């Protein structure tokens, strides 16, 4: 994985995924090390995402590396109309690795083709967010003790939710059974279902959340975003379709964990937070260890 960009989760084989998860477990034991001493990582956030940026920057600084970059396009030369290629080529002069978040689909793949230093995609438009996917996998493995053969339910916006797409694709490498819960307008796109079919795995589609709760090991909740709907009336119709509360978890499996990429709005009632099955806050913390593993492995330090 040395010097190899991470643009899309499908860039990593099953073995490479497992290697990152192993490394992340090591960093969880010892998150503060001098591994990145003397290394400079550029953190280019062409659109703001405080959560992801802080997680990356904390990961790097805890390992003794330094961070340069910008937190939004407003303050950078991008605003003056510089092309992505020129920004990447300039920044690569000053850094050993570039973490980038960009609002345009496919921008990270393109950057990885023009950049002399490796790129880590921290989200490109509606397309991919592979480090989120790896931290989801880490959370699943940590809570279930395995990745293989799990019943995983995805709930909410399965059409536009890029974290859902990446995680579904990754889990096809681990023989998951997929339970897909969404309003008909927000079903999983056929381009993603194709991966499930090609892996010859089972999937089931539901519109009722209650139906799926007793039968899964992981309940992956997502937010339904207003901006996805051209017609505001369509949004009003579905916005409250999937609100999980503590009562609903009564008949769930004992090993069930509830995940959510955060931020949540009202898909998970606060009364779930104190249930030991709620795992979304720990899930976010795991992001730091996983990002340490990714950066260290691409820089060839692990």
């Amino acid at each position, binding site marked *: 994985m040395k010097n190899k960009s991470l643009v899309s989760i499908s860039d990593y084989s099953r073995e490479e995924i497992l290697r990152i998860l192993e490394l992340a477990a090591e960093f969880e034991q010892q998150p503060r090390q001098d591994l990145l001493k003397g290394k400079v990582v550029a953190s280019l956030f062409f659109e703001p995402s405080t959560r992801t940026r802080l997680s990356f920057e904390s990961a790097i600084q805890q390992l003794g590396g330094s961070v340069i970059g910008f937190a939004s396009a407003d303050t950078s030369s991008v605003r003056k109309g510089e092309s992505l290629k020129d920004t990447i080529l300039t920044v690569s002069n000053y850094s050993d690795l570039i973490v980038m978040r960009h609002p345009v689909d496919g921008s990270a793949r393109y950057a990885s083709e023009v950049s002399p230093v490796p790129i880590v995609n921290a989200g490109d438009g509606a397309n991919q967010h592979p480090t989120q996917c790896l931290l989801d996998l880490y959370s699943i493995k940590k809570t279930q003790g395995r990745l293989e053969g799990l019943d995983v339910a995805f709930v909410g916006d399965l059409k536009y939710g890029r974290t859902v797409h990446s995680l579904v694709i990754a889990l096809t490498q681990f023989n998951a059974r997929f339970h897909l819960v969404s309003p008909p307008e927000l079903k999983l796109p*056929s381009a993603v279902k194709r991966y499930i*079919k090609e892996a010859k795995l089972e999937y089931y589609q539901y519109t009722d959340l209650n139906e799926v709760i007793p039968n899964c090991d992981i309940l992956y909740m997502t937010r339904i975003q207003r901006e996805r709907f051209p017609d505001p009336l369509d949004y009003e119709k579905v916005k409250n379709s999937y609100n999980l509360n503590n009562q609903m978890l009564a008949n769930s499996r004992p090993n069930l964990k509830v995940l959510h990429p955060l931020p949540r709005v009202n898909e998970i009632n606060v009364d779930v937070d104190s249930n030991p099955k709620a795992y979304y806050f720990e899930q976010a913390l795991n992001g730091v260890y996983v990002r340490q593993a990714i950066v260290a492995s691409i820089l060839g330090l692990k």
Partner: protein
Amino acid sequence: MNDKRKQLIVSAIQNGTVIDHIPAKSVFQVVRILGLDNTEKQVYFGVNLESKKYGTKGIIKISDHWFASEEINKIALVAPSATLIEIRDYEVTSKSSVQIPEHIEGIVKCFNPNCITNKEDVSTRFTVIRDEHDELKLACHYCEKNTSRDNLMFI
């Protein structure tokens, strides 16, 4: 139609290429993809001709021009059933069918308006795939979205 007359129609040009079995509705797209709307060569075309296999078909004949395979394969997206007949001195010298290429670069636009290829000066790259209904689709190398034939726009 007997073989002699068929031969006659096909051989109506002395030298050049005949593209046969084009779906009737795709003839003008083929003309555009191959740039035949901007050529100095003589071009004949027919639409809504009878075809045993397809009901109706279109045909294009270009005098004094032969295509490289990567050039002609561009039309496979709109005319996968097309056959290519090369004529030299009124004789058919070769007959072949178009091949659907595995990769397509720079001919077609990505339908996703938020794709980097539609935002910056980046040329398009696609892998040709078939979906579960055996429909041809173009998977964008950059945004990873699939452009279907209904959304095809040529650059």
